[in-house]
């Protein structure tokens, strides 16, 4: 049985860990609301872009490179959205697992995946294993701003628009975590490029019956192609921003859950250790008593 001193030391260190976990949990739960608000605030913009793309898609025969698939080029890009910091449970590891299986699947299809990583944890994971990573971004994974989304989408669109012999890619996949609710976050794989334009008629049937039959026929200025050139990259950027925001909310929720479990575990551990400490102390007291009584008995016996 370990000494009382050792138990006391372990209890003290577990108690300070518990304080850290508890603080982390409280920080995460206060940030959740903020992350959700940020995601909501960005919604009107992505809605506006989506409507515009829908209006453009109505005019058929769009031959913009962003919607056209270049079958001959085997190079594809994969973007994995991971966390900057640990203590978020399985958040980064499930992203990495999904990414690995996606890479293996693409390899089987005869494609050459190129990896892009956002988030320090993912970057260190791949650096440590000596993997070839085409591009990395770090910082602010729990509150990604427009600037990060712009940087990432510019780099990826650049790679996408380049011809195959200059290292261009023909597809772009994003591995991110969808925020379902506080308890459930799901890893999802999204094919971002080429953009799949939703068929407007199908979409309208799915919509509420109150939707107008005919959509307005827009006039485009300066020309349809130039508006497309401007709007489609913005569409991609806003979709990427959306992915970043939902990943950030998931990361915070994951961290909160992980820290909640860690706090509970630490408390259980402290309870268990305290019980053991008490048992040890009691055993020591009993032993001392036995020794005193035994020696007193021995003295009495000698007198007789």
């Amino acid at each position, binding site marked *: 049985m370990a000494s009382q001193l050792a138990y006391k030391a372990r209890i003290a260190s577990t108690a300070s860990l518990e304080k850290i976990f508890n603080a982390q949990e409280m920080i995460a739960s206060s940030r959740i609301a903020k992350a959700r608000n940020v995601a909501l605030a*960005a919604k*009107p913009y992505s809605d*506006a872009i989506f409507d515009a793309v829908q209006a453009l898609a109505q005019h058929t025969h769009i031959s913009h490179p962003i919607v056209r698939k270049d079958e001959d080029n085997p190079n594809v890009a994969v973007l994995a959205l991971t966390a900057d910091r640990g203590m978020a449970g399985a958040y980064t590891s499930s992203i990495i697992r999904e990414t690995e299986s996606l890479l293996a699947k693409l390899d089987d299809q005869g494609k050459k995946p190129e990896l892009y990583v956002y988030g320090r944890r993912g970057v260190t994971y791949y650096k440590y294993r000596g993997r070839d990573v085409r591009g990395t971004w770090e910082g602010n994974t729990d509150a990604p701003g427009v600037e990060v989304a712009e940087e990432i989408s510019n780099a990826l669109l650049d790679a996408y628009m380049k011809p195959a012999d200059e290292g261009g890619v023909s597809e772009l996949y994003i591995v991110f975590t969808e925020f379902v609710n506080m308890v459930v976050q799901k890893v999802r794989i999204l094919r971002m490029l080429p953009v799949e334009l939703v068929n407007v008629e199908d979409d309208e049937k799915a919509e509420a019956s109150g939707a107008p039959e005919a959509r*307005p026929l827009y006039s485009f200025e300066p020309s349809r192609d130039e508006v497309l050139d401007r709007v489609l990259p913005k569409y991609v950027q806003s979709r990427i921003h959306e992915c970043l925001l939902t990943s950030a909310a998931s990361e915070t929720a994951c961290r909160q859950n992980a820290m909640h479990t860690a706090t509970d575990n630490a408390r259980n551990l402290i309870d268990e250790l305290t019980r053991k400490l008490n048992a040890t102390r009691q055993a020591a007291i009993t032993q001392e008593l036995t020794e005193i009584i035994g020696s007193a008995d021995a003295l009495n016996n000698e007198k007789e």
Partner: protein
Amino acid sequence: MAASSKPTMKVNIVAADRPVWSGEATMVSLPASEGSMGILADHEPVLTATNDGLVKVTEPSGNVLGFKVTDGFISFDSNKLTVAVETCEEAQPITEGE
């Protein structure tokens, strides 16, 4: 007050990270890619790319608000104008109405 009898339209200005302003307006002038463009109520449906510049919104009261914007696009249909831009500063009053 003559201004109030003018037809109005709904205007919605959104930046990439937040909605900026929404309300009624009688006229909006925009830095369209081919030069400045004014939009009155009941304009034909239009989708236009815009450059960096100043979006001026004339409210029914006659107040003119200015929004400094970076590039983006606008769409107008069913008397509703949506201005979607990368970034946008808060409204600055340019002229006061009566």
